[in-house]
């Protein structure tokens, strides 16, 4: 065996691609040839040292993020049958967080007949980030705005509003039971809502999971809407 073959077999051996007889022959050669012996030892050290380059685990929310992206893509798919190039643009745009100009830009405030729609009730409580003025507020405004644009341009948004954080009335019977914003036992109140179209509750939940609201300590309640019963109907 020559020295070149020895080195080649040693590398294949490290990669699990060399047969035992080949390895034996290479070892015999390396034992007799000082240069090959040293080279083999160095290659084994490097192969072993590479083992310390361990990747961390994938982020825990990566599955939820993928589900959200797929929900948005499916919504866009339902609104047309884009060709391969438009599809590629959709994927790229979805990853960039902006589905600019691919599936239309207009809001669709009218619910289509029998279209399954869901209300995303954004709730805030004492644990949520307070959007005080400054860089944090600017960042939050930018992220919420980008999210809304993404929903809009992907064709799932049917309407949205933020609610006044301070003003509200609670009526019971003919009297005003409370003046101000209603808070539950945990101190949470509804801070806004989005009306979205989705295949089902799970898909709506996947869309909700893409909201920056969750990153800022808020919660989102997802509720299906139903057709109101018609008077005299069955």
């Amino acid at each position, binding site marked *: 065996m020559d020295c070149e073959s020895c080195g080649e077999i040693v590398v294949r051996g490290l990669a699990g691609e060399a047969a035992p007889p080949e390895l034996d022959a290479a070892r015999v050669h390396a034992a007799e040839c000082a240069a090959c012996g040293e080279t083999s030892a160095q290659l084994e050290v490097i192969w072993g040292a590479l083992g310390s380059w361990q990747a961390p685990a*994938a982020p825990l929310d990566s599955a939820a993020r993928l589900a959200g992206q797929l929900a948005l893509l499916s919504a866009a798919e339902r609104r047309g049958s884009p060709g391969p190039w438009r599809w590629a643009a959709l994927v790229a745009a979805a990853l960039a967080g902006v589905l600019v100009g691919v599936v239309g830009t207009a809001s669709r405030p009218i619910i289509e007949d029998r279209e399954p729609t869901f209300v995303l009730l954004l709730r805030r409580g004492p644990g949520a980030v307070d959007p005080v003025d400054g860089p944090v507020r600017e960042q939050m405004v930018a992220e919420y705005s980008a999210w809304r644009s993404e929903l809009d341009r992907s064709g799932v948004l049917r309407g949205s509003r933020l609610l006044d954080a301070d003003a509200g009335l609670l009526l019971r019977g003919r009297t005003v039971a409370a003046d101000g914003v209603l808070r539950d036992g945990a101190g949470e109140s509804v801070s806004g809502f989005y009306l979205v179209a989705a295949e089902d509750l799970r898909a709506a939940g996947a869309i909700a999971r893409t909201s920056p609201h969750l990153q800022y300590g808020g919660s989102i309640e997802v509720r299906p809407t139903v057709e109101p019963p018609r008077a005299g109907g069955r």
Partner: protein
Amino acid sequence: MRSAPAPPDLGLQQRLRAGDREALTVLFERHREHVFALCWRLAGASVAEDLLQETFLRVWLYRASVTGRAKFSTWLYAVARNVCRDYLRRCARERSLGEEARVDALVAATPHPRGRAEGRLAIRELVAMLGPDAREALILSRFHGLSYREIGEICGCTEGAVKVRIHRALERLRTAVENKEARHGL
């Protein structure tokens, strides 16, 4: 009570091809750590999660081409590899600076791999500076335990080419370390 065995990838591939998003979810759970690790090593920590997402979005997009003839993980690795390549191309990471010059520059600051943790870190940095073909082949072999045949399918080359790429990659690392030893009189 034992839980039912997970369905093999082949059945999931058929469901995926038929447009079953649940099948994609199962495949994602099954393979995401491997794909994430590949993206992490090929393209870097800061974009690995984005590239993981893009890989599976492409899997969904190209689900009609999942035939079941090839092993799903091999096809998936090929998609991930292409995603990483596209990203690196977009970012012009593969700079015009000559590969030799880049390696030499790093070697000058590389401790011996038999030494401390920073030595191992330097080896990692050296791998990142290998040419894309050699880097991909080495990473797929060393960290993902793939055979030369599988790596050839993923990278679109012959087994012989894979053998040459891995051999050259390791030789380059060995030479770099050897030169470092000589410079420091080790």
